[in-house]
């Protein structure tokens, strides 16, 4: 697979341990990359370096092999960018803004833009000042996508959107992804990226912690279940089964076990002999995964 965006030992040191430090990450063509981290972890700084707005202290970001800071005017032509903070230029209406952007992009054909507007149910005649957050977001999306750029970079695009709006938004991004575009999207919400992205990277305190394929997390070979017994003798008896118990809560007569996928049917068979109050699967989520990775990392340190 061809690498589109390549982050190489990227460091931007703002002092006081703020910034990003020694990040390395490759994003391949057609990939939809999620970029998660808490507030202030360095997501936006990474994207600013990528867009060539700020100069890295060391290391570099390459887009199609071009260093981003020096070649910003060239690489930004291939990127549709939706900034984290939506602030439009001082123009009257959405139409004015979109037309102005088209002019910047030397775009004479507005058909794609019009199509996007229709799909998003956006009224571009509205004044920019009185647009709601959602409308602004939609307008920004149209502006970023109307030139049909091969790369789309979104900085926390769903923040502040209601769930319905978020879904519509995610659908559009997914659609663009389906067209084969490379998408780089930052978020502070694990669920969002795990729902939409192929691959997710975690950034914490400026350090890139881990990068995983969402599919690998979803289809993990080991699953965990929590079981509560009605009677204490059942609770005692279950300890003699072969399943590895990872957690016990005697006061509730609960156990948590970790088994591989193919053992599930055997488990249910053996449970038939017990009087149980409930059984539930403890899902292994991206969030859980990263928590564990972080825990491990902290232990190592």
């Amino acid at each position: 697979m061809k690498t589109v965006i390549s982050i190489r030992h990227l460091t931007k040191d703002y002092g006081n341990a703020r910034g990003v430090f020694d990040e390395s990450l490759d994003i391949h063509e057609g990939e939809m990359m999620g970029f998660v981290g808490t507030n202030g972890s360095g997501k936006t700084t990474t994207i600013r370096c990528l867009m060539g707005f700020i100069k890295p202290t060391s290391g570099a970001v390459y887009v199609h092999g071009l260093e981003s800071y020096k070649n910003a005017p060239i690489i930004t032509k291939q990127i549709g960018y939706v900034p984290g903070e939506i602030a439009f230029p001082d123009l009257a209406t959405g139409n004015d803004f979109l037309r102005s952007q088209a002019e910047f992009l030397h775009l004479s054909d507005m058909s794609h833009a019009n199509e996007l507007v229709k799909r998003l149910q956006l009224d571009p005649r509205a004044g920019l000042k009185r647009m709601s957050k959602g409308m602004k977001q939609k307008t920004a999306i149209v502006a970023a996508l109307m030139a049909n750029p091969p790369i789309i970079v979104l900085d926390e695009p769903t923040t502040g959107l209601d769930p319905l709006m978020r879904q519509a938004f995610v659908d559009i991004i997914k659609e663009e992804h389906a067209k084969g575009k490379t998408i780089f999207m930052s978020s502070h919400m694990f669920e969002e990226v795990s729902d939409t992205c192929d691959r997710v990277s975690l950034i914490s305190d400026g350090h890139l912690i881990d990068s995983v394929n969402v599919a690998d997390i979803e289809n993990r070979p080991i699953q965990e279940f929590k079981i509560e017994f009605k009677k204490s003798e059942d609770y005692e008896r279950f300890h003699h089964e072969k399943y590895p118990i990872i957690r016990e809560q005697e006061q509730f007569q609960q156990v948590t076990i970790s088994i591989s996928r193919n053992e599930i049917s055997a488990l249910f068979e053996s449970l038939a002999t017990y009087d149980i109050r409930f059984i539930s699967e403890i899902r292994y989520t991206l969030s859980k995964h990263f928590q564990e990775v972080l825990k491990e990392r902290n232990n190592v340190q």
Partner: protein
Amino acid sequence: MFNKALFKQSVKANGWMWLIITAAECFMLSCVMIISGSGNIGNVKNSVESTVVQREIDASLEKRSLSYYDLADTGLNEFDTYYLAQYPADYQDAATYQAAFETWLAQKPTKASEESDEDYAKAIATWKTTMPEAKTTPEQAYALAFESWEESMPKQDDFADAAAYRAAMQAWQNQKPSAAITSASSAFYTATLELKNATISQAEKEGYDENSDEAKEMLGAVMYALKPSNEFDEIYTSHDEAVPEDYDVTSLISHIQSGDATAYVSTTERISYREKRGQFSSSVFLADNMTKATTVAKMLDTLSEYHVTEEKYEAFGYTYASVKHTAYSTIVSYQARYDYEKSEIDTQKSKGDYADEASYQKALADMKTNLTGDLSRSLLASLPDEVSSAIEEVGKMDLYSLIVGSVFYKIAGLLLPFIYTIMASNNLIATQVDTGSMAYVLSTGTKRRDVTFTQGCFLTLSILAMFTCTLITSCICFHAVNVTDTGLNYGRLCLINLGAFLVVYAISGLNFFTSCHFDRTKNSMALGGGLSIFFLVATILGLFGSPVIPSVVRFEALNNFNDVSIITLFDVISITKGTSDYLWKDAILLAIGIVGYVAGSLRFEKKDLPL
């Protein structure tokens, strides 16, 4: 380099602001130019000027009336002295001559009956040659008087009857010249001559030639007071004034005869007689002098320097009556105050405050000088030096170019363009970085240099357009008002507008730099805008210390503010006075602007943008 889309965007974003500010600026400018050009300001100046001029003329009138009066009074006093000295000798002379004459008369041959007419005529002729020779003035006067008296002897044929003839003869006999009468007139004549010579020699002592106008004026002041003959009546009759009676020597003579003449001359009675005469004659003489056509022409000639036209001079109202009144009242008040001050000094003298007579005389003379100066103070002399020179300045200053150039274009008219410049330059770069909207520009592949170049072009062109509008407005207004006495013309208006543009351009360079340098609008505005307003405020304060302000309201210390403001490089004075100093100053302003734009542009290209 030039990005059309960005330029359009900037036009849309700042167009309204530009339009509103430009309209307000042009409106303000036209108000200032039309109101100040339509007379109000000129009136202030003219009335200040007229007041000054009129008060100066008044003062010189008062001074002159006092000096006439002084001459007249002193002259009459001297005349009395001369007369006193002259009369007894003359009387003696005349009396002696009269005696000799009477003796000679008595020797007149009578026609004997045997004598033929021819013989008699011969005898008379012989007798006539023995007439006592009239050598001195009293003698001549007597002889002359006698001759004319004799010739005026009534002829019998002229009368109808003998009784009338007798009565006429009786009257004629009574008029027979006596030594007393002829010596009175001869002493008068001699004393007048002496007074004349004394006055002329005084004039010469003061540096005036005998035939100069000044000497004639001095002599006139004295002679009209004395009025030695009817020749001097015309000045009174021509103005319908009562002709003063002949100068009173009769009382002098009677006091000479009673032997207390010297004391009499310095009695209050005699002094006030002389004063009254002097008061009247000098005010008439001055009023007559001032209203003579030649004098008026001369005055107008001198006053034309102060823009006093004939109509204006007439409006001042220097008629015969008013001048006479001014002179008379000045003299009267002078006299009153003189009397009071003299009595004070005399009291001090009686207390023995003066060591000797000389110091007493000196005190009197000083008092007199002070009084004269006091009463005839001109407006300018009565004010402190600074104020008077200021008023003179106001009279001479070019108020219109001060208001339009130094006040409007250099201060008031800069405020709105400054506000526009501060806001626009921040809108163009800093605000877009601060809010993040610059991301939409830069994420479309626009080079940062193109951004600064385009925004710089927009800012420069918008300011240029603004001052093109003010230039057009100012030319129209200048055409509409008709201002004379101003250093302004269309060419200089262009230069003033250019200068104001360059000031704003330099300020825009500064603000453009801060706008490019800071990520936060508030910081950019604080530094760029703060400095700009500081310059403006410094110029306002500096104005009160600058040479265009009349020195009385000028605070020299405030001039230091001009040294810290770049607006000082906009040299309106140089432009309105037509010197070329403004050229290099304009060049510096242009350079400051260019440096600001270039430095801002370089800074913007290098810096991290939080977008």
